């Protein structure tokens, strides 16, 4: 009886008792969720446009951030460092296309997925080899000031991150839906060979997509890095993005956002209100459980394409 009470009643009473705190938790969750979405966006881009589940996205976030910080540490001014970082990520896209994607054209998805795991290892090792593996501070001039609105504590930085994500999503959505390149990208995601046979330049498309994903990774890296320092654990954020993708569907840009928000809020709320009951640190697995349960009822995620079985 006690247990039932503490699981199903008490947490909600707590929420009602201190509504402002609850609002803070929710908003905090939303903002974390936005950060997850940023990483998830990179996944969605690549998956939507090349059908590849890019496990290396997290490593790309780390690598991009490391490059930026490394350059800045060596005295390069922020603006130039940003441009150079973008250039590096574009170069990376070229390399990946040439060395990994081209030889594996039309292989099964799982082979490509494994290849991206390989890329992740290489990127992590290489990034740390070149720039060093100690934690670095990243300061790109975004203020980290907290202020109060109606009794709720908000953080300027978090809001900035949210705004950035919103703009990025809007741009990407337009890009996919309205432009010719966007359409070509969708064709490629569907069927490599078919796309080739109608003259879509696979090579160019892939380079474009991976570059864009690289830039998205850079943005995500900046946000995360500024918040908690640039370090190895950044690549583990990628793992967190996976439940986001599961919820939102692998092929949906709005899904990545909504999924991120749901996971962010869900995680935080669960940790604060239910966490103490079972020993804390549920954040490690809650997101996955949530996504898994959700998927059982809706296998394609919230916005993903309905999987039609055809015989």
């Amino acid at each position, binding site marked *: 009886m006690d247990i039932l009470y503490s699981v199903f009643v008490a947490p909600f009473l707590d929420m009602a008792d201190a509504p402002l705190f609850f609002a803070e938790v929710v908003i905090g969750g939303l903002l974390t969720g936005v950060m997850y979405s940023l990483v998830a966006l990179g996944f969605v881009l690549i998956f939507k446009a090349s059908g590849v*589940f890019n496990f290396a996205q997290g490593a790309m976030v780390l690598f991009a951030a490391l490059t930026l910080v490394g350059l800045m540490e060596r005295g390069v001014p922020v603006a130039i460092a940003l441009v150079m970082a973008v250039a590096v990520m574009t170069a990376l896209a070229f390399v990946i296309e040439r*060395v*990994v994607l081209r*030889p*594996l054209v039309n*292989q099964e*998805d*799982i*082979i490509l*997925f*494994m*290849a991206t*795991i*390989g*890329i*992740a*290892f*290489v*990127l*992590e*090792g*290489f990034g*740390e*080899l070149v720039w060093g*593996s100690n934690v670095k501070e990243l300061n790109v001039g975004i203020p980290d000031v907290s202020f109060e609105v109606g009794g709720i504590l908000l953080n300027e930085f978090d809001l900035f991150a949210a705004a950035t994500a919103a703009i990025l999503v809007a741009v990407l959505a337009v890009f996919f839906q309205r432009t010719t390149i966007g359409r070509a990208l969708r064709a490629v995601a569907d069927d490599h060979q078919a796309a080739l046979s109608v003259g879509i330049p696979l090579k160019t498309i892939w380079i474009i997509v991976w570059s864009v994903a690289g830039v998205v990774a850079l943005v995500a890296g900046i946000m995360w890095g500024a918040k908690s320092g640039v370090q190895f654990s950044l690549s583990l954020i990628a*793992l967190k993005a*996976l*439940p986001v*993708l*599961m919820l939102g569907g*692998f092929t949906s840009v709005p899904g990545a956002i909504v999924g991120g928000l749901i996971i962010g809020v869900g995680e935080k709320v669960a940790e604060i209100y239910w966490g103490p009951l*079972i*020993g*804390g*640190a*549920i954040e*490690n*697995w809650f997101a*996955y*459980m949530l*996504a*898994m349960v959700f*998927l*059982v*009822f809706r*296998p394609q995620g919230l916005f993903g394409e309905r*999987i039609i*079985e055809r*015989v």
Partner: protein
Amino acid sequence: MFYRETGQFKASYASDEAIFPIAQDRWAVIAIVIVAYVVIPIVANEYWLQAVLIPALVFSLAALGLNLLTGYAGQLSLGTGGFMAVGAYATYKITTAFPELNILVVFLLSGLVTAGVGVLFGIPSLRIKGFYLAVATLAAQFFLVWLFNRVGWFYNYAPSGTITAPPREVFGVMITGPEAKAEARYLVALAFVTVAALAAKNLVRGRLGRSWMAIRDMDIAAEIIGIPLLQTKLSAFAISSFYCGVAGALMIFLWLGSAETLAFDIGVSFDVLFMIIIGGLGSILGSFLGAAFITLMPILLTNAPQVVGISMAIDTQKDLESIIFGGLIIFFLIVEPHGLARLWQIGKEKLRRWPFPY
């Protein structure tokens, strides 16, 4: 000219269905078995047994398990570490609660426990497929590790949070605990692996194995010809988890001696996955080759610089290992996506025709 089947005719379906239909293969396997059981315990030193052979055996078992699930049944799983943890902690709890129970029996019991857990986490596989399923298995991985970390009951409330293998003996020989000799532990592990490999091979060449492969290749068609999807998928999860659970138990009790949940974290899941990719998905032999490869490689990489005469910082070494590791994975996927086992098969083909080129 040595490796030819001329003159070896199969007069019955039984001999055609045999595991090693070619006589030369049979002799080779017998030789390997003799070497493994008789020669190595006599010849090998402590270091080789502890650092190379025993872990290779433990991971071969885990790789076998994962290969059955992912390579044969096509269900991608990233929860191997978690399942191994279940086996290890189950063994710990059972043997500390019932010290008189034969430890070998305890290993098997913990395998059964793990099979149960595997079935539980396999249920979503009916609705979720492919990458989505992989992410769902991550839920198992993270949850199980958290569970064994947080809930004190699992490690008998030891303040350090680690579990330690209590000394146990079998037929008068000490096989776990600090007194156990490396040779004894090696032989027990070898025995488990041998039986497991045989059972696995039998399963995959029979009805269940074909059902798994049917589901892997085209599950809709499989259902239409009468293969029950849920039961078949769950059987794959169950048997695979059994193997991984026993592997986890062996890892702690016969190899490491003690551990905390870090020994079963997501890195292990990826390691075992690499083993079966590099070794060959859907191949029993591949599981062994992959496990040997991944176990040996770090040792080679750590020792190679010294052999060649370069000295390197540990950090640099780790980074290089990462790069080489990732590079090798990509290389293998491009060159031979079906892994070492396929390379081996191709090699045998060439051997058959030798000295002719084709």
